[in-house]
């Protein structure tokens, strides 16, 4: 046994074969390049977690100046797209119910008069909150907007009133992404999502395919060692993973202008750990799946919680405890923190290390299961 150690030439034969097969399998190859591009377009351009230009109606019952000022202020904001000026309470109710508008700003009858008296009149904002994510930021924005819009009119003798308008001024400070640009958050995260999706599916398929087509039996009857087959099959996909990373990093830099504050070599080094974690999942699935379809199903079974519970789709801190617990197990959760830490916050090795070890632990555990199961499939 000991005379037949790992042989580079046999390992390299497997690598070369995988590359030929990869080149021939246009569909899978297309998927590997297509998924990053598709997701970049979808998440980078189409999906926006901070929606703006939300349809809005104004019901202005106040004939005075400040009512008009406020209406103009709403029209000028990015968040609101004032489409209607409602004439009655009934119309307000109908617009909301039919979903024609997301917001109705209700300016009461004696608004101007009460502002002048310094009474801090109530400004009613009615929101269609069926999609809270869509309305949250807009509601925050209306606060500041009211203050700012009125400030312009409150000058000269009216100046002292300003103090009364916003005695408790709402302040929002956005760190690392002062303009709240969704892409800064999404695009680095996409690297993790794309790698999770493609690495798991491709490794699970590549190994299951050998067994399904009977070629594994043939391979095992040759002197090639299981380790040579395994590593020989993984190396090409690690390279593909880096290619995908490169593609997304280029897009992040030049299309989305995502700031890159941290060290790129550090990121690429941790990337290897993350790729290894996903390959380990793929190997484990391939030992469980009887055919390629099952391998595909298992991959999606893993992919869904990864994308939903990792903090990529929804804010991690907004999830209930049990969901956070599940999320903490997934490598993607930690990888997202790591990528955002390095790229957006400029974190160094010591600052992101505590995001890396859970991924390493996950990888070792799964690789252990995978290799144990892989050995058993031989017999």
């Amino acid at each position, binding site marked *: *046994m000991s*005379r*037949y150690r790992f*042989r580079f*030439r*046999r390992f*390299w*034969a*497997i690598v*070369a*074969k995988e590359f*030929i*097969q990869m080149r*021939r*399998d246009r569909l899978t190859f297309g998927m590997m390049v297509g998924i990053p591009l598709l997701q970049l377009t979808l998440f980078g351009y189409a999906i926006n977690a901070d929606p703006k230009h939300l349809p809005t109606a104004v019901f202005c019952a106040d004939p005075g100046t400040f009512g008009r000022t406020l209406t103009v202020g709403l029209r000028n904001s990015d968040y609101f797209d004032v489409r209607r000026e409602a004439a009655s309470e009934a119309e307000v109710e109908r617009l909301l119910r039919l979903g024609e508008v997301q917001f109705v700003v209700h300016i009461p009858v004696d608004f101007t008069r009460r502002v002048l008296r310094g009474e801090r009149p109530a400004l009613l904002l009615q929101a269609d909150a069926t999609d809270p994510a869509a309305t949250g930021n807009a509601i925050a924005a209306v606060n500041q907007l009211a203050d700012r819009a009125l400030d312009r009119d409150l000058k000269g003798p009216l100046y002292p009133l300003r103090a009364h308008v916003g005695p408790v001024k709402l302040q929002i400070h956005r760190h690392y992404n002062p303009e709240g640009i969704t892409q800064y958050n999404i695009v680095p995260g996409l690297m993790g999502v794309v790698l999770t999706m493609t690495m798991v599916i491709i490794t699970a398929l590549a190994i299951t395919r050998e067994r399904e*087509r*009977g*070629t594994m*039996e*043939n*391979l*095992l*009857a*040759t*002197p*090639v060692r299981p380790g040579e087959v395994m590593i020989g099959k993984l190396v090409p996909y690690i390279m593909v993973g880096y290619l995908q990373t490169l593609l997304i990093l280029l897009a992040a830099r030049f299309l989305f202008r995502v700031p890159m504050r941290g060290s790129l070599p550090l990121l690429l080094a941790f990337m290897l750990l993350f790729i290894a974690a996903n390959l380990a999942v793929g190997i484990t699935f391939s030992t469980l799946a009887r055919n390629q379809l099952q391998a595909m199903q298992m991959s999606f079974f893993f992919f869904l919680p990864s994308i939903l519970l990792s903090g990529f789709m929804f804010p991690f801190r907004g999830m209930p405890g049990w969901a956070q617990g599940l999320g903490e197990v997934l490598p993607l959760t930690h990888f997202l923190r790591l990528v955002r830490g390095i790229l957006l916050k400029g974190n160094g090795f010591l600052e992101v290390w505590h995001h890396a070890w859970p991924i390493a632990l996950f990888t070792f555990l799964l690789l252990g299961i995978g290799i144990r199961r892989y050995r058993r499939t*031989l*017999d």
Partner: protein
Amino acid sequence: MNDASLAIDVRGMTKSFAGHVVVDSIAMRVRRGEIYGFLGPNGSGKTTFLRLLCGLLRPDAGEGTCLGFDVRRQSDEIKRKVGYMTQRFSFYEDLSIEENLDFIARIFEVPGRARAVRESLVRLGLENRRRQLAGELSGGWKQRLALAACLIHRPELLLLDEPTAGVDPKARRDFWEELHELAARGMTVLITTHYMDEAERCHRLAYLAYGRLLAHGTVEEVVGGAGLATWAIAGPDLFGLAQTLRRRDGVEQVVPFGNTLHVSGSNPAALARAVEPLAGRGYRCERVESGLEDVFIRLMSASEDNFP
């Protein structure tokens, strides 16, 4: 018989899966340069036995040598000198003919790889089509490619698992021609098959059922060992006659062969008493040599009775 002249010499080989014994204490000796046929019904353990020999599976019990190497401990050495051709085509359909041969040559670390691949292509007569994908080949060509790939590292022992299933008669004959040529040059061949004509082309055979070796030897030895007498009967309404004969004493097996019935039994006298009266009723009856097929059908049905 000394050890050096034996390619395979194993005893007590046993393997079970999930409590079900698939190979049950099989002993086998195969001489070098011999074509050894391996027969038996589907699921009798032929494939599992081949996998035990080439180190794909570890036996639960049993010992012995394959090409002089210990089957339990030296499977790596055995794998280098064995060419194993699986039942299903198990090369890469998305690789070309040349790429497949090259891949196997690299895995076996064949010295002078490029030349070995080229020679193999020439011998196959496929040098013009070497860039064609293996998946596009017809059944007969796939089988030839598989054989060529199994031979590229110049093995001393070929294990062939139903290599001719689904291959046309001409291609089968060419295939056997090649096997005999290889055997003449010293290669040992262990081949499983369901075809009687192929069984008769083997130097020696073994019959396996329910994991047990029921008979082995040359064709003559196997037929003789079965102690079966057989009559061939020709005449009208053979189907009706078969029903009647099956109920008679001394008749153990009635098998239609085209326009004749083969009636067999292990007691020649009793069988003669059952058959001879037919001669007067328009039937032509003659005593014939039992064929391999008569013997195998007999072995198969007897084993069913023994191991339900």
